[in-house]
């Protein structure tokens, strides 16, 4: 069933805090289960390609701003046409 959207002002004030608490708990569980330090030590060739990061979504150091603006601008111009 869909959840009802009714909220009190007090609840709204804590919305972000509640969200952050949930996310923190979820991440803690996932990180623990995935932490390579508690698994067997990988051989030299098995080193995670951590520095490569995600390929599809370039992430800049400043909160993930788009770093491929020339490409984005080209696409925007294409749409306008």
């Amino acid at each position, binding site marked *: 069933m869909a959840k009802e959207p009714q909220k009190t002002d007090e609840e709204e004030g804590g919305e972000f805090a509640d969200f952050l608490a949930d996310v923190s708990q979820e991440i803690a569980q996932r990180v623990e289960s995935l932490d390579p330090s508690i698994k067997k030590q990988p051989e030299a060739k098995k080193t995670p390609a951590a520095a490569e990061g995600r390929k599809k979504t370039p*992430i800049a150091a400043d909160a993930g701003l788009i770093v491929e603006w020339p490409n984005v601008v080209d696409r925007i111009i294409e749409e306008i046409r």
Partner: protein
Amino acid sequence: MSVVNYGTREITCKIVYYGPGRSGKTTNLQHVYSKLPEERKGKMVSLATDTDRTLFFDFLPLDLGTISGFATRFQLYTVPGQVYYAATRKLVLQGVDGVVFVADSQARQMAENIESLQDLHANLAEEGLDPRTIPLVMQYNKRDLPASEISPVEELDETLNFRGVPHFSATAVTGGGVFETLRSISSLVLSRLSAPAVKES
């Protein structure tokens, strides 16, 4: 897929709010932004027209700080709902980790909801993502409108939610259901969190 990066100690998740024009995608982000503590408020990038309709996309970086030793960032995007911005929607979907489909509950908007959902599936497929498995949450927005103008939740669910994913009623303009939706999609995305691939040889 969202990745926990042990090298840089970072977790980054990209969530896209998808749906037909004027369904309330930008309003969702605006509510989230309004509830952020000052110290966490970055810049919400919103490119709107004179009539307040999203022209290209909205972008809200959510810096959640360090969680379990990892700098955690959520990136919330909206797409322009209007049909003629197809290329922009494809662009925004690149690298998406989870989708919130914001449906307009108005009965007269059902066809637009269906068209947008089909558009989402087509664009996900083009990105090489499986529309049947990508983390997805449905939000039925504008539940504050008169009952005579909106479709029952059951009807919306039967028509749009064939995957049986979590769904939420919302009144984004007042914030109702916004964080419930965000928490749900975040949970789904994080449950798929994975370490970077480790080659076996």
